[in-house]
């Protein structure tokens, strides 16, 4: 495939022409990018920002907004990339605020091995999420200039929320999830 044309044995046919004649047939193409260079370490970069409101009398943390900015080289599919970041942020909000495995140490049993008490975020827990990419091809990474975006979106969110909470209430929480119980406990120490 080359600039909107299918090229075969010297003939160039526009894709629109091919698709007209396609009927029930399927065109399958395969492609790959070059491997990463051996003499360079390829990294992605990102930064997350959280805006929170803390109810200091009930310990409730409301995450109002998360801004996630990533440099992953060229964006191949903007919607998939943005969805990946949103998904990472939402999972990380569970990590930051609600998700915790509770083990009874004398019984050796997980007490919340269910979705009733192991609390993942619901749709109402999801704040405004702003996703931005630098979208600059990293020419040294590979011929596409694209880099990975699997894990980066989940890594910084909980820390950003924790920093925002510390900034809001003047006391730092040292454990996640930052539940109402832990917020009230931290505030009780400084009051």
């Amino acid at each position, binding site marked *: 495939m080359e600039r909107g044309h299918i090229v075969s044995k010297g003939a160039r046919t526009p894709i629109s022409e091919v698709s007209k004649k396609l009927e029930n047939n399927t065109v399958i193409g395969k492609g790959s990018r070059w491997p990463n260079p051996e003499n360079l370490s390829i990294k992605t970069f990102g930064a997350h920002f959280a805006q929170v409101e803390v109810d200091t009398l009930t*310990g409730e943390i409301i995450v109002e907004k998360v801004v996630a900015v990533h440099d992953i080289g060229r964006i191949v599919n903007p919607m998939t990339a943005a969805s990946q970041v949103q998904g990472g942020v939402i999972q990380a909000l569970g990590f930051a605020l609600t998700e915790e495995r509770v083990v009874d140490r004398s019984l050796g*049993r997980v*007490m919340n091995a269910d979705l009733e008490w192991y609390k993942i975020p*619901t749709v109402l*827990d999801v704040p405004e999420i702003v996703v931005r990419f630098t979208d600059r091809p990293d020419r040294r990474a590979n011929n596409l200039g694209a880099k990975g975006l699997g894990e980066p979106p989940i890594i910084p969110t909980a820390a950003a929320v924790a920093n925002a909470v510390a900034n809001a209430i003047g006391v730092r929480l040292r454990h996640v999830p930052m539940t109402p*119980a832990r917020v*009230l406990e931290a505030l009780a120490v400084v009051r």
Partner: protein
Amino acid sequence: MSLFSYAKPRALGEALKLLKNGTIALAGGTDLVGLIRSGLAKPNALVDLTGIEGLRGWTREKGKGLRIGALTSLSDLETSPQLRKLAPIISESLRDAATLQLRNMGTVGGNLLQRNRCWYFRDEAVPCWLKGGTRCFAAEGENRYHAILGAAECVMVSPSDLAPALIAYDTEIDLASSIGRRSVKLSQFYITPSGKQRKEHAIRKGELITSVRIPEAALERRGTFLKAMDRKAWSFALVSVAAAARIKDGKAHDVRVVLGGVAPCPWWVPAANKLLDGSALDDNSCLAAADLILANAQPLRDNGYKVTLARELIRRALRSLVA
């Protein structure tokens, strides 16, 4: 799960005849199905009540209060605009109860009779006291969601959001069995499990809730319901507060404050209600009442935060009645 038979009678009388030992009544099934699946309920027969007409919906007769059929779905109550005006605490209490799907299936009677959510109780492998064992595992174990007040041998908490709301309206419930009918105050219907009473409700064998009734006088009260959760939806209450009062010339009368999620029963302290009679519900009076309500609190290892939370929720709920 063992085999059981299933019947779907069309009339209440027929259903009552079918309710005998080993038989369990099924309405929305949102609690019962889970109990059966986890081996906590072992019926040999289910009597499906959903075919019975006449137990659904609500009626208001001027001077005679409000009557709600036990099979009315929670979502019908929550979304009725007339009911929201008439008895706002009910719709407010249901707004954050479970999820929309569960509220569509769940019924008033089933909600009031739901069993507690203690994770030791719900774990089939744990022989806790309430299930006939020798001790409460939560008392010395993982107890962040458990009772700070009023517990005896078992530290589970009353899970219903609707029950505190209805108790704030002095609700009575009507019960029927093949032997006869009776009515009790909802506030007297819940049991603190203790001694020989290893159960949460004062329902008798073969008995069904047929309706709940709110007396006319209670409908004059303003009211609100606040619920603290550890996420924004689909959570049982960490603490919930139903507050009601008749407000006249800026002063509160017939005050009711009822808490959920803090004790094995919906929790209220008559002296606190009395303390607020004639009060303008200023911050100091509200907090004084809250302190009275929580005076005997005995938090466990992980649930001391509930005392702080309850105190603030009581204040906010009461303040909102005069706001």
